[in-house]
């Protein structure tokens, strides 16, 4: 355990020392690609891209609290939703001519609203840490969820509110491409803001709070004030994310406050990897894309996501990005020794996913509990243009066999790889 821990830290430091040229090139390349995306992909996918970027930003904002101050919020939907409503109100005010802000700047309202509510809630919630903090954020979230549908004037009651983006400077914002660019710019702004924050003194102090709050107090810091500010910043960027969604959809309803929206950034962050800066973004974007694609193909997407989340929490608590980057760095030195195990592990995972999904989807249809998907009258199923009998014994036998074999392969490969690392780790220790 210690050997691998040391290695993680080792790799952290080396990555910081990496040549700046390559990183800069990569960032420029990705940015250019993102800005030219409207020319490359059809509008439907641009809508996906908007949702993905917003989910990434939201997860990143949530993770500001965890990755720095080790505060776990279970009520971030509140700030997301309030940001969304702030933008909807701002849009309708500008529609009525009361407010004259350039349309692309309106998402700023989400940022401001989030910051303000974050200041108030943050002050209350950060009085306590740990479980109490989690509970207070949860309580505030549930409280707002229960109030929102009843407060017609502000949250539009059960049906919600909608508004329209006004044209500005020759842009109509009627096309998804234009909206995409606005969302992209704001997301990059949020990203840079959070990245910048980590490098500031307050960012470092926030990290120190997560490490050892008591010590910080004895160094003369009023940590409650620091935590309130961090909370407010996290809520502000969450509000921006919500505002961007409202800006793109031109509507918002009280359902934005629902627990599912609080669960989203938690899942995205911890699946992606909370202690890698890009982890939450990867988690947010990846899972949103998958859910957009998969929810069309499968009604069981949430089940899969839950199962993956539990597995990751149990076996790779550092999240997928953390897990992968650790393994890549670990095995660079001795990939020859490990490549066979990795191959077995990965194909085992693929086997588990394929056979598991197949069994789940087929039995779901056999159960007949879904009003939407089911069997054809003759007991056949069509999955990915492949029609077969749902109760075919050979198919079930094959699926179970693949599942069991894959499970065995994954376990064996993981065990062998672990032994290899331990030996390498011991050798390294011996050299020191």
């Amino acid at each position, binding site marked *: 355990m210690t050997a691998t821990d040391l290695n993680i830290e080792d790799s952290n430091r080396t990555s910081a020392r990496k040549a700046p040229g390559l990183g800069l090139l990569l960032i420029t390349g990705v940015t250019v690609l993102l800005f030219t995306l409207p020319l490359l992909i059809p509008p439907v996918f641009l809508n996906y891209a908007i949702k993905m970027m917003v989910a990434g930003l939201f997860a990143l904002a949530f993770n500001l609290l965890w990755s720095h101050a080790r505060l776990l919020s279970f009520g971030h939907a509140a700030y997301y939703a309030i940001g969304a409503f702030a933008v909807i109100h701002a849009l309708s005010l500008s529609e009525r001519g009361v407010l004259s802000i350039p349309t692309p700047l309106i998402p700023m309202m989400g940022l401001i609203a989030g910051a303000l509510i974050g200041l108030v809630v943050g002050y209350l919630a950060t*009085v306590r840490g740990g479980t109490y903090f989690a*509970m207070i954020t949860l*309580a505030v979230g549930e409280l707002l969820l229960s109030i929102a549908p*009843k407060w*017609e004037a*502000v949250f539009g009651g059960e049906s919600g509110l909608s508004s329209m983006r006004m044209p500005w400077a020759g842009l109509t914002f009627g096309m998804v491409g234009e909206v995409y660019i606005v969302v992209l710019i704001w997301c990059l702004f949020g990203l840079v803001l959070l990245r910048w924050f980590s490098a500031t003194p307050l960012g470092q102090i926030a990290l120190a709070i997560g490490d050892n709050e008591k010590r910080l107090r004895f160094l003369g810091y009023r940590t409650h004030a620091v935590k309130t500010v961090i909370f407010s910043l996290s809520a502000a960027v969450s509000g921006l994310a919500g505002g961007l969604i409202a800006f793109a959809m031109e509507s918002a309803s009280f359902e934005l406050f629902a627990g599912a929206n609080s*669960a989203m950034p938690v899942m995205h962050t911890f699946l992606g990897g909370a202690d890698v800066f890009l982890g939450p973004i990867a988690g947010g974007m990846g899972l949103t894309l998958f859910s957009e694609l998969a929810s069309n193909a499968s009604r069981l997407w949430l089940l899969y996501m839950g199962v993956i989340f539990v597995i990751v929490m*149990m076996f790779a608590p550092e999240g997928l990005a953390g897990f992968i980057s650790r393994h890549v760095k670990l095995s660079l030195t001795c990939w020859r020794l490990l490549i066979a195990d990795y191959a077995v592990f990965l194909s085992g995972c693929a086997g588990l996913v394929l056979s598991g999904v197949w069994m789940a989807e087929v039995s779901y249809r056999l159960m007949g509990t879904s009003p939407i998907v089911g069997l054809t009258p003759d007991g056949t199923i069509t999955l990915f243009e492949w029609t077969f009998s749902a109760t075919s014994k050979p198919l079930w036998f094959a699926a179970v066999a693949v599942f069991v074999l894959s499970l065995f392969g994954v376990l064996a490969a993981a065990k062998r790889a672990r032994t290899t690392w331990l030996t390498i780790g011991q050798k390294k220790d011996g050299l020191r």
Partner: protein
Amino acid sequence: MEMLSISLLNGTIYGLLLFMIAAGLTLIFGMMGVLNFAHGAFYMLGAYAGYVLSARVGFFPGLLVAGLIVAAIGAMVERYMLRSVHAHGHAHELLLTFGLLFVFDEIVKFFFGYYPVSYRVPETLSFSVFRIGSLEYPAYRLFVGLVSIGFFGALVLILRFTRIGLVVRAAVHKPMMVEALGHNVPLVMLLVFAVGAGMAGLAGAVAGAFYPTSPAMASEIGTIVFVVVVVGGLGSLGGAFIASLMIGILTTLMVGVDTTLADTLSFVGFGSWGKDIGGIFAVPLSASAGTLPFALMLMVLLLRPAGLMGERT
């Protein structure tokens, strides 16, 4: 008046039911320092198990077996999942139970669909016991109350007068110390987790026949029980008992009240102002029954973070 006494009785019974679920949660928190997000799911699993079993082995044996099945699930969750995550810290344990809530929810939807199932009170108990004025009181509600009281009594007796109860009470306060004294704390934890889950499961099986049995029940009851445990004081059984009754009675009473906040304000002459603001001020209190527990929890967390009877701050 009739309404009031019925509401009080209903509220008390609801409160007792809440306690039956909250007891396990608060004990588990006391021993492990982990607030189990999946606890509400145990309640839901109990209801569904009761629904399936009652049709096959009869209603009352079904209840019992449902409780046992959920206890077994709880034991497996503790032994094979929570324990392996323990090394990564409380936050990860919390996250794991959070994920489990999600998975259990989806599994139930997988087998039983999104809509409530028709889990019904058995014939033998669907009569009215007594009448208050013109209102008849269903026997099954009393049965729910009796089962809860029975478990409350049994729990108190076990905790007060048995050796294992003594170890559990000690372990809730100082798990490390109890382990140092040579007690098998992991086994005790497993047991407490299983019993806690089993009680929630049994509560679900009993209550599911009366209240709707649907996939939504896990998070609904889960959040209310959270409130109960926090208000009562994390780790405090007595506090959980008081908080359960309090929240049970208050929410039940509020459903019957049609006054609005604006009406209340008119007592001090601000009625029209309140109505002008509209929104939450113009909503009858009955509609805010869902808001009350969370407002209460927030108040307790901020004013007396240890809860009504909690010791830990």
